[in-house]
């Protein structure tokens, strides 16, 4: 049981990192990136491949995965420079599928749908499962703490202000003298890099990556996390990720305890309960549980 709880917390942490990246791109920058699962896959596969095939150590593989994901993010941002809203959503969604299908079919590289197993984890061989899980949880939590501080600072900075302006009215941001495309590219780079980091952390934790893991449902869950937590609020993104994972697991037990329904019905009940919760939350608090705050400046005698 305790291993299960630790594992779920690690997964919540991985989702939280993705939610932070999503909150930067979508929450602050207003760009609907539905390609999240794709960047998650790019990060996971990069780290898995360079450790299993090239024998790179984990501490080099993870930063490399972040870089590759960020680079893919830059390419996507340049390609989609003129797209907004629904159109950007469709193109990025297509990109995620592209990554997943490539991973399924380029068997020489990715081992196809069989996936890559035996991805190393830090000290996995020498530690007991519980110790390994706890160590990994510690690593993930430290990373989240650092990212949270960095992103909160970024959100409150002039950079974050320009992003929020672009989200509301791109043309005004341009008239204000800001190079909108450059801001979008940089935001995509950082945000997608973070999602790639989550992917790499997933690969080294689960020791196994396969195309099945990177379905669009991952993107949907992260979007839900950000929407429920509070679009544009970094605390909200963390809270939302925890809620989404907790809900997913809690409903598993709930549906399991209803022994008069078939397992397939139980799965449907789970999804319905999650959906119901989200509908209620977003009806009561449209801006999410922790809405974005505008900074208040005090007028000192200047």
């Amino acid at each position, binding site marked *: 049981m305790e291993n299960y709880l630790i594992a779920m917390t690690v997964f919540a942490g991985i989702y939280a990192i993705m939610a932070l990246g999503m909150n930067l791109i979508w929450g602050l920058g207003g760009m609907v990136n539905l390609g999240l699962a794709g960047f998650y896959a790019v990060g996971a596969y990069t780290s898995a491949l360079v450790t299993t095939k090239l024998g790179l150590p984990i501490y080099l593989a993870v930063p490399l995965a972040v870089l590759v994901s960020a680079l893919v993010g830059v390419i996507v941002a340049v390609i989609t420079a003129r797209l907004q809203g629904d159109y950007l959503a469709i193109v990025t969604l297509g990109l995620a599928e592209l990554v997943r299908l490539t991973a399924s079919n380029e068997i020489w590289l990715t081992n196809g749908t069989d996936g890559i197993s035996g991805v190393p984890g830090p000290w996995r061989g020498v530690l007991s499962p519980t110790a390994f899980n706890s160590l990994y949880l510690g690593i993930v939590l430290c990373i989240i703490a650092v990212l949270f501080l960095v992103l909160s600072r970024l959100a409150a900075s002039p950079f974050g202000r320009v992003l929020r302006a672009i989200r509301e009215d791109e043309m005004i941001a341009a008239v204000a*003298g800001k190079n909108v495309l450059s801001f979008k590219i940089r935001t995509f780079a950082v945000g997608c890099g973070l999602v790639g980091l989550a992917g790499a952390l997933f690969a080294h934790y689960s020791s196994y990556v396969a195309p099945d893991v990177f379905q669009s449902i991952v993107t949907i869950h992260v979007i839900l996390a950000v929407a429920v937590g509070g679009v544009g609020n970094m605390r909200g993104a963390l809270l939302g990720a925890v809620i989404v994972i907790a809900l997913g697991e809690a409903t598993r037990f709930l549906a399991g305890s209803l022994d008069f329904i078939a397992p397939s019905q139980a799965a449907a009940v789970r999804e319905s309960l999650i959906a119901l919760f989200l509908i209620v939350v977003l009806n009561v608090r449209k801006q999410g549980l922790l809405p974005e705050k505008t900074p208040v400046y005090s007028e000192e005698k200047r």
Partner: protein
Amino acid sequence: MTAPLLQVRGLKRSFYGIHAVNGLDLDVSEGTITALIGPNGAGKTTAFQCISGVVRPDSGSVIFAGQEIAGCAPNVISQAGLLRTFQIARGISRLSVLENLLLYAQEQPDEAILSALLRRGRQAEEAALERAWQIVRKLNLLRVANNPAGALSGGQKKLLEIGRALMAEPRMIMLDEPMAGVNPTLSGEIAEHIVRLREEGVTFLMIEHHMEMVSKFCDPVIVMAEGRRLAQGAFKDIAENEQVQDAYMGRRRWA
């Protein structure tokens, strides 16, 4: 004679076969409040859109402070010191008044990610904030400084439009109907702000239908009709110009 601060030659822009701006020539000398008037559909706003880079002109030349800016992106033109406001106030509603102003501050190092994380541009941000407070006081927006721009009254939104342009420390501001839909007291106030800013060295080109204001504060006045400059001169001469009267009232074909 020195070259005009803004020089437009042969500016053209069509929308689906309609020649909104059709070979516009226009000069704005430094230190003036130049009015751009004309009947609805004369192409005044399209001319503004083209000059400020929001809409790409089909052809023509726009020289600002000796630099060709026709076809440049809006951010490049704003950075060159030519700012514009919008007819329908477009304050960013979810940003506070102060944030709207701060957004227009130029050369903020902390708009770069690394610099923002290290807060290298803290001094620039502090200086910008100080200027934002000054503008807020000057424009009587002090009490709403931390309110979201979306919660302002119509008149306050108009003031914020001007304030934002000022924040960029421009050489010239293009105002698109700064007094439209504003009560007489406030439009008088806006006019005072504009006159004072001119004394501080800012040049204005302003679209306005409020003829009393135009006659009082603007010289010269440029009249546009059918996408071109029809006449230019002091308000008194313009008002007596028969061509101009025709453009506004319609031609007297029966005469």
